[in-house]
């Protein structure tokens, strides 16, 4: 394994698997925030402390038992070029915080990129597990096992009363953030989403764009996650989120049905127009590309468009991000150049599928 392996491919190996309910739920993610006792939290730690944390993880990684989850690679952020960092962010393997603000950050990745352990992010450790489709429980189980394994090797900062201690009070307790990435085009088209989001917020869950905090929803893809980490068990947190996601799946399916029955021709028109844009445009901005990809993916899910694989949305959404385009072009591009390359890549990919 090498860095190349992680930044050359747009879709991670785990994404190629088709998970349950993957017509609507693109991916499930569990993140556990953990800190080591006796060291200041990363943003307040000395160079020595930060290096010690990384060394401890290297030692743990050298251990044979880690073989249970495949081979792991530890990448130091200071050895990565800005572009490589950006690509890892676009693949959700590291957070923007780790890429931009962490002084002594590192990340530990397994071969199929389903596990990423960020080191010296806001907390000493951020264990992240990604699964295709709707598999929150499976992801929680895996994250729990990795957590148990790490706990054997390092001393966690844990308090009987407050639970796992984290740098930010919003993560204390379980340190658990469970989230799902959902494609909800029909709820957006029928404008139900604007009613649904406030309702979800009232349940203590958060709806965001695909790149987390402070990003807008591109291509009708929404990230839904828990806000509360204290005072509930991990299982309850995941169960509460699951309950809401199940309802959203039902509502999205119902809205898709209604659209197909009531506005069949309008819907098909929209889908094929978007398909036309993707197949023919010479210049395309990321926002328009995301919208058209969403339409085409809906067309695939509804059987209106045939012969194109579902993964096109997941793959092109990442491949057409600024970092990836530049990685692909192997040079820095200005926004105009990116829009041209984006259009070319999409055309190529669509033609490939048609052939």
């Amino acid at each position: 394994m090498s860095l190349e392996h992680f930044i050359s491919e747009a879709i991670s190996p785990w994404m190629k698997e088709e998970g349950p309910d993957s017509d609507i739920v693109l991916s499930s993610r569990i993140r556990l925030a953990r800190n080591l006792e006796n060291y200041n939290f990363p943003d307040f730690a000395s160079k020595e402390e930060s290096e010690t944390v990384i060394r401890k993880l290297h030692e743990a990684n050298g251990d044979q038992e880690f073989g249970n989850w495949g081979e792991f690679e530890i990448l130091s952020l200071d050895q990565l070029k800005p572009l490589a960092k950006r690509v890892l962010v676009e693949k959700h393997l590291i957070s923007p915080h780790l890429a931009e603000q962490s002084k002594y950050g590192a990340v530990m990745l397994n071969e199929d990129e389903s596990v990423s352990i960020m080191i010296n992010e806001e907390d000493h450790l951020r264990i992240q597990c990604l699964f295709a489709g709707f598999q929150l429980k499976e992801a929680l189980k895996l994250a729990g096992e990795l957590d148990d394994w790490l706990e054997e090797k390092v001393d966690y900062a844990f308090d009987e009363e407050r639970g796992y201690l984290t740098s930010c009070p919003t993560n204390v307790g379980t340190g658990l953030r469970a989230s799902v990435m959902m494609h909800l085009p029909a709820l957006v088209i029928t404008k139900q989403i604007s009613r649904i989001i406030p309702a979800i917020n009232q349940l203590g869950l958060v709806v965001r764009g695909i790149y987390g905090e402070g990003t807008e929803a591109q291509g009708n893809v929404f990230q839904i996650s828990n806000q509360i980490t204290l005072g509930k068990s991990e299982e309850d947190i995941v169960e509460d989120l699951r309950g809401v996601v199940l309802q959203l799946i039902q509502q999205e399916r119902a809205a898709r049905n209604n659209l197909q029955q009531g506005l069949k021709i309008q819907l098909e028109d929209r889908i094929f127009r978007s398909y036309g844009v993707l197949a023919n445009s010479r210049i395309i901005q990321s926002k328009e590309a995301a919208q058209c990809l969403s339409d085409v993916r809906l067309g695939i899910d509804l059987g209106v468009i045939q012969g194109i694989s579902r993964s096109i949305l997941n793959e092109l959404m990442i491949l057409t991000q600024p970092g990836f385009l530049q990685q692909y072009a192997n040079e820095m591009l200005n926004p105009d150049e990116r829009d041209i390359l984006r259009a070319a890549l999409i055309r190529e990919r669509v033609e490939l599928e048609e052939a």
Partner: protein
Amino acid sequence: MFCQDCHERPATLHFTKIVNGQKTEFHICEHCAKEKGEFLPGSNTFSIHQLLSGLLYGDPAISGTASPGLSQQSVLVCPKCGMTYQQFAKIGRFGCSHCYEVFDSKLDPILKRVHGGNTKHEGKIPKRIGSGLQEKRELENLKKSMQQYILSEEFEKAAETRDKIRLLEKQKHQEKGE
């Protein structure tokens, strides 16, 4: 004025870049500014921590309007990492795990606000360093439910629970005795 990059949205960010004495003016919209990402300060700086510290500043105990206790609060400082309570309130983050102990007396209202009224961990307990805690929590839970049974006058169930508690306590003593 429209954004010079996308020509679609109104320009909301205006700035001048000077490189080697060469001046370039930019007028762009927020969307394109985000695309430019790291090159632009201020385009993506609002974070959860700022929001949180806003909440903390709303606390009369630190906003300065109160109280004779203020002088005492302002000297709360973590001996391990040197973080003061005021710094913590400003940035919304702890410096080290020891801060939790030092600021403990002030944490409940903050945690209640961000965690829907909760202040106590109910989740996973680490196996190695937390051994013993599991039994302790089980005992606490049993005692709680016994009280509830008594209040609702379900004495049979209360008695059953009491027996369970006794059994657990006995086991605990035996383990210690070994």
